[in-house]
């Protein structure tokens, strides 16, 4: 049997959390989940403003990156795209999430010393603006699907060439 290469201390701390909240039966609290679903429904009226705010931040980050292509502006652009990727499905904009995911992938996977092409950044941000302006929430929209596929393909090509 192989020996450990360095001493390892393995221990189980007392479960203070369980002692604090109790819950002898374990499992999900269904009543709490129902309340939370209702609370989420109550927020839906704000989602249109929230996605508009996120898109605005992305546009601002794009403008900053186009003006000065440095590590800070690139990181800000990635954060803006990454936020939209994670949140847009909740705000009922899955297509925007997909395009933002493609933009995040491009920025995140290109080596740090390789500049992110502004034209391809613009193509993604413009697509997000169009989807938002047209309020396209249906993932079956053929034109939007074709646009997403085209952006994915261009990012694939870029990453293959640069890696």
């Amino acid at each position: 049997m192989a020996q450990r290469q360095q001493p390892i201390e393995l221990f189980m701390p007392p479960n203070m959390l369980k002692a604090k909240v109790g819950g002898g039966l374990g499992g999900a609290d269904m009543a709490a989940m129902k309340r939370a679903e209702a609370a989420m429904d109550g927020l839906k009226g704000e989602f249109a403003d929230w996605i508009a705010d996120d898109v605005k931040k992305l546009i601002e980050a794009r403008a900053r990156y186009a003006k000065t292509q440095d590590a800070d502006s690139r990181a800000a652009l990635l954060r803006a795209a990454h936020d939209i990727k994670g949140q847009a499905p909740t705000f009922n904009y899955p297509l925007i999430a997909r395009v933002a995911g493609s933009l995040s992938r491009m920025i995140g996977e290109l080596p740090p010393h390789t500049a992110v092409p502004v034209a391809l950044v613009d193509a993604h941000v413009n697509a997000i603006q169009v989807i938002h302006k047209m309020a396209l929430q249906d993932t079956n929209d053929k034109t939007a699907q074709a646009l997403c596929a085209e952006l994915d393909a261009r990012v694939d090509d870029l990453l293959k060439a640069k890696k």
Partner: protein
Amino acid sequence: MSGYRFDRLKILVVDDNIHMRKLVTTILQAFGVVQIYEADSGDRAWTVLRESNPDVIVLDWVMEGMSGIELVNMIRANPASPNPFVPVIMLTGHTSFEHVREARDAGINEFIAKPVSVKTMMSRLVAVIENPRPYVRTSGYFGPCRRRRGAEDYRGPERRAENAKQQAAE
């Protein structure tokens, strides 16, 4: 009904996006959590953490300045940390296997891939209450054990020490 007294919990929500913070706090409040602290950056979270000593942290990964991963490293290793064992639930748009592994290696207890849902939030909260992982201390790592089963019998190489060396070299 599980009978959890979520009203006894103190939870810190860390996210630089105000909408995501509102979404998470709304869910937690509906669960019955009363004491919810918010921070919009890793630096602010470190301050709030030391003031409030929360029972659970819900943490974003990608933030300006200190990242979620860097904050977890401080929570686990910094002598000024009020509770190195505090359960951390990472909520992130990163979804690849490599990212999940990186989060685990940094000392995350549970992982939620955005978009957040009520069901997933409940399941991860219950997981940190009901199924806490043992903790490991080595020369290069302190945090929850990555292996949920069989950790006691593990006799293989200490990969985390290698990870720590690689990170130090980078």
